[in-house]
């Protein structure tokens, strides 16, 4: 749905994007995770060409954007929704007026417009605030208005620029739940950037980790977590740095099989648990356990664990 290749963008001597490729599949929620200054905001703004890359191509819904003229680009943007960290609502308009704004620009007639606005406000659960001014709303309500406005043109793609970073944790969850619901109900493809692991964990199907203008790793979350040496796993489970010989076991799905006690019973090993965590990610639970094994049959025990489908990494 979004296909970007070889994106490069510099500001003077600063390289914001250093040859970034991005592939977001239709219907998924794709998160770009990174610290501020990693280039993720530039990447997002390149997707609708708010920022023009120095090199590279961007196609959204099969349409190459970098070659479009101003008028065609405007038309294309009307079908790419965007929501913003600080909501970017027009303070001079009511809630309904804000949602009507993109429709006005598209040239929709007044009657049709007000019906569509009512429908959108209903969809994001804020129909009762239609006549309020943005200044009278809470952050979560403002973002709901932002989402309704972004959906006005029936976009296939929604770009979310740190959409929950200005919200408190409770409100963040409710906005994330709304995005997830829109993703499921409308088949909306969502590309979001965030510095919060929590956002990735709760709604993303795929993730790209960015640093220094480059994507370090990317792909479906569960796939990444079960890849040895995954940065995502390391960031998601902040276990202490392993000492040589320590074993890190990653398991997905239900942890109902008592593998550790099996190992201890079957092999001549002692297992000490050094740390561990269990997280709900991408609709399933993923756990990580740091142990140290001692005994004659250590390598046989590790082989056994691998055979059980667990990801076993031994620190060198």
């Amino acid at each position, binding site marked *: 749905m979004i296909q970007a290749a070889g994106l490069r963008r510099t500001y003077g001597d600063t390289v914001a994007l250093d040859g970034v490729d991005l592939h977001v599949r239709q219907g998924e929620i794709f998160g770009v995770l990174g610290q501020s200054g990693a280039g993720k905001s530039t990447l997002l703004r390149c997707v609708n060409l708010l920022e023009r890359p120095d090199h590279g191509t961007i196609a959204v819904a099969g349409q190459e954007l970098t070659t479009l003229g101003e008028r065609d680009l405007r038309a294309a*943007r009307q079908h790419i929704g965007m929501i*913003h960290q600080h909501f*970017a609502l027009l303070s001079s308009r009511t809630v309904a007026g804000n949602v009507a*704004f993109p429709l006005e*620009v598209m040239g929709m007639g007044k009657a049709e417009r007000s019906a569509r606005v009512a429908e959108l406000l209903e969809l994001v659960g804020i129909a009762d605030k239609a006549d309020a001014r943005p200044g009278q709303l809470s952050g979560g309500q403002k973002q709901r208005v932002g989402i309704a406005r972004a959906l006005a043109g029936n976009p296939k793609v929604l770009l979310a620029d740190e959409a929950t970073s200005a919200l408190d944790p409770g409100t963040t969850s409710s906005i994330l739940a709304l995005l997830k619901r829109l993703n499921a109900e409308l088949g909306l493809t969502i590309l979001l950037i965030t510095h919060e692991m929590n956002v990735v964990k709760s709604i993303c199907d795929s993730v790209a980790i960015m640093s220094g203008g480059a994507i370090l790793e990317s792909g479906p979350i569960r796939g990444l977590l079960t890849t040895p040496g995954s940065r995502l796993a390391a960031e998601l489970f902040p276990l202490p740095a392993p000492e040589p010989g320590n074993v890190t076991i990653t398991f997905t799905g239900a942890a109902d099989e008592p593998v550790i006690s099996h190992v201890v019973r079957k092999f001549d090993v002692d297992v000490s648990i050094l740390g561990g965590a269990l997280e709900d990610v991408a609709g399933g639970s993923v756990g990580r356990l740091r142990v140290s094994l001692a005994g004659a049959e250590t390598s046989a025990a590790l082989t056994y664990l691998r055979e059980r489908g667990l990801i076993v990494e031994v620190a060198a």
Partner: protein
Amino acid sequence: MTWEEMVPLLGQATWETVQMVFWSTLFTVVFGLPLGVALVGTSREGLFPSRVANQLLSLIVNIGRSLPFIILMIAVIPFTRLLVGTTIGLYAAVVPLTIGAVPFFARLVEIALRGVSGDVVQAAHAMGVSRTSIVTKVLLPEAKAALVAGITVTVITLVSYSAMAGVIGAGGLGDLAIRYGYQRFETPLMIATCVVIIILVQLAQSLGDALANRLAARR
């Protein structure tokens, strides 16, 4: 001079001042608003960036701002005659008043528009809004309260300019103060004129504030 003699003089002069200020404010907004929009629009991060146009506009505005009004007023007399056919009277005064206030107001418009958050402008771009629509549907409406405050300051400046225009026979309170207060030593009338001007300024400021507050409260 008795009170009975003063009142009609003051009434007539006040009315002339009000008319002068009204018309010159109207023309100042008509010319100054687009000029201010152009100043912001042509700037480097503006919607229609153009270095040449921006520097040219800025130069024109700065020239207008650097001449003291009393000199500007006399310097534009030939232009006034060309436009109005006469150089005295309140309609003739509207010409230099407008020319003096346009650059000033344009800078105030510039400040007001720069106060609109870049986020909102960027969001409009992301929605596929054209640049002209961003000016008319985003920048100007969002800056409404600041623009009203700018108009208020301009009105007050024009009250003071219009008094100066008394020197070239424009009529109004300035004219009255010069002819009676200065040339005939009518100190009570001089004081009364000052009081009326102060009241006018207070009225303009209160009205402007009330309007700006109402617009701001609706956010």
